[in-house]
């Protein structure tokens, strides 16, 4: 019997920010899918106009409490591009280190507290903790390692205050990392355990032919440098982003939809990074991925929980490498000489690429700014996933289908706060 129904979730929990989802099913076909972000826009780009170039990292860090480093790195690399600055050596290494801290913190929060309960059938991590106390405690301790890295390098764990254009306000003493080294070694093992833990979950059989977009660096797993590449032929410099990508306004959402001008929806985030940069992972991370059953690419968004865990293995190893090689630099930053220029930067936020472009006047005052966060870029792909997923699972009850739709949204760890902020889900069957 053909079905017409609407499935509706008025409040989707365990996502960052305020939004809703509406799915209308008519004659066993999905007639309408809307991922709506109804949080009011916050006009950060307008706040930036008239401010000094050096204020951008601290202002943009306030866009998100979960991924401030992503914004800071996007801002500083864009400013340094505009002002023709090079930040190398230990300063560059410290940037990678603090970014590893953010990846660990953000990914572990999502894996254990937000996404794992979906797979295990719990309403939330509190319910899950009663049956899986060891796993949840491992997650909390692992996340704290990320927080501690952020604190040492960034000055504090939330909204770090030590990042500046050209480097840092103060470089940490080598001794500060000593106590963290042993904990990071524990974290590396715990991250491998995490990959094993999540690889035993049940994954819906669901794959799509995505266009993955990520940064690619000549020899590193990407964080804030490289070319923008895709698995469908895109290979461009960061400065050419706006020639290839556009933002479109959709009436039902407060966040702009990003599209590739030539091909439409695309996918950013852990699956894209992994699938485009598998060869840049460390042998231990590759081994963990292989033992978890992943190939060199992954097209099942539900398995993003495994990929995030693999990236945590990588981030722990990279952090250990940087700490082992760390020598406090003589000067914590490179001097900047303001000039009229336009600069672009792009960094790999935990949820995917985050693009920044600033135009400065002779005195380094920001004339205009453009910031494209990862969740804006994934909105159309999230809708596309639901449009394909729902018709294949119409046999499910409204309750079960709604659960799986929410889970499908959480595959992207959407940061709605960044994209503009709660998610409400509505599935209509007519």
């Amino acid at each position, binding site marked *: 019997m053909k079905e017409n129904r609407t499935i509706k979730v008025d409040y989707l*929990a*365990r*996502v*960052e*920010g*305020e939004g809703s989802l509406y799915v209308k099913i008519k004659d066993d076909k999905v007639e309408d899918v809307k991922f709506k972000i109804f*949080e009011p826009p*916050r006009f950060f780009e307008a706040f930036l106009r008239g401010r000094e170039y050096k204020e951008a990292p601290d202002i943009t860090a*306030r866009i998100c*409490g*979960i991924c401030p480093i992503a914004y800071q790195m996007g801002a500083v690399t864009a400013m340094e591009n505009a002002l023709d600055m090079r930040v190398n050596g230990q300063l560059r290494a410290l940037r990678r280190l603090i970014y590893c801290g953010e990846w660990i913190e953000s990914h572990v*929060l999502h894996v254990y*507290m*937000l996404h794992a309960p979906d797979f295990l059938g719990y309403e*939330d*991590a*509190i*319910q899950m*903790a*009663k049956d899986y*106390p060891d796993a*949840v*405690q491992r*997650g*909390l301790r692992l*996340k*704290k390692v990320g*927080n*501690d890295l952020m*604190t040492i390098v960034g*000055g*504090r*764990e*939330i*909204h770090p*205050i030590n990042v500046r254009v050209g480097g840092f306000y103060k470089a940490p003493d080598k001794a500060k990392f000593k106590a963290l080294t042993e904990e990071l070694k524990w974290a590396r093992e715990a991250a491998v355990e995490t990959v094993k833990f999540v690889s035993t979950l049940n994954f819906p059989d669901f794959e799509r032919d995505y266009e993955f977009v990520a940064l690619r660096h000549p020899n590193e797993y990407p964080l804030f440098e490289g070319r923008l590449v895709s698995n469908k032929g895109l290979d461009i410099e960061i400065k050419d982003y706006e020639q290839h990508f556009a933002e479109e306004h959709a009436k039902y959402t407060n966040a702009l939809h990003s599209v590739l001008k030539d091909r439409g929806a695309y996918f950013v985030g852990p699956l894209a990074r992994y699938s485009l940069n598998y060869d840049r992972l460390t042998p231990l991370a590759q081994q963990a991925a292989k033992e978890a059953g992943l190939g060199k690419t992954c097209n099942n968004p539900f398995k993003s929980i495994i990929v995030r865990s693999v990236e945590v293995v990588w981030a722990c190893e990279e952090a250990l490498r940087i700490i082992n090689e760390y020598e406090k630099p003589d000067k914590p930053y490179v001097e900047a000489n303001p000039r009229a220029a336009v600069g672009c930067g792009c960094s790999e936020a935990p949820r995917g690429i985050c693009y920044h472009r600033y135009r400065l006047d002779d005195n380094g005052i920001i004339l205009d700014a453009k910031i494209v966060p990862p969740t804006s870029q994934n909105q159309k792909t999230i809708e596309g996933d639901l449009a394909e997923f729902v018709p294949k699972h119409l046999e499910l009850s409204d309750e079960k289908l709604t659960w799986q739709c929410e889970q499908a949204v959480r595959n992207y760890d959407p940061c*709605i*706060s960044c994209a503009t*902020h*709660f998610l409400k889900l509505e599935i209509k069957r007519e």
Partner: protein
Amino acid sequence: MDGGESDSGKRSLALIIGVGNEYRCDDGAGVEVARRIDKLNLLQVRVLAHSGEGASLLEHFHEADLVIIIDAAQSQCSPGTVHFFDADNSPIPSDFFNYSTHAFSVAEAVELARALNKLPTRLLVYGIEGTDFSAGIGLTKAVQNSVDAVVGRIMNDL
């Protein structure tokens, strides 16, 4: 006042945690209470400003026998209403402090700590009902008045 560092080496008799975002008007109520208490330089009392991110918040619970959290609340009560929860006696309503955009917030931190037997000896939570959570600095009058009242109540708790 500390800015959310996880310094587990420090242990005090009491830890005061002001939660919120000062750049979202009344959401800064908890931080303002913490700041007032910090200025009193009380012995054996550590004061912390915190964003409210739950997993990180939970990590501070072992740092003192008495932990007091102050956060802005939004529960349809009149502005400035002071809510109080003794975590030993009752669970924290999960939708109470949900103004924060954090997916894992104060209530979840407290209840997760309970599930993992990680609650401090005593955990008190104050909520100050806010009305203006828009972008900007400064508390509304009713919330300002309640900040004074909560500081007084916490002095009694200590």
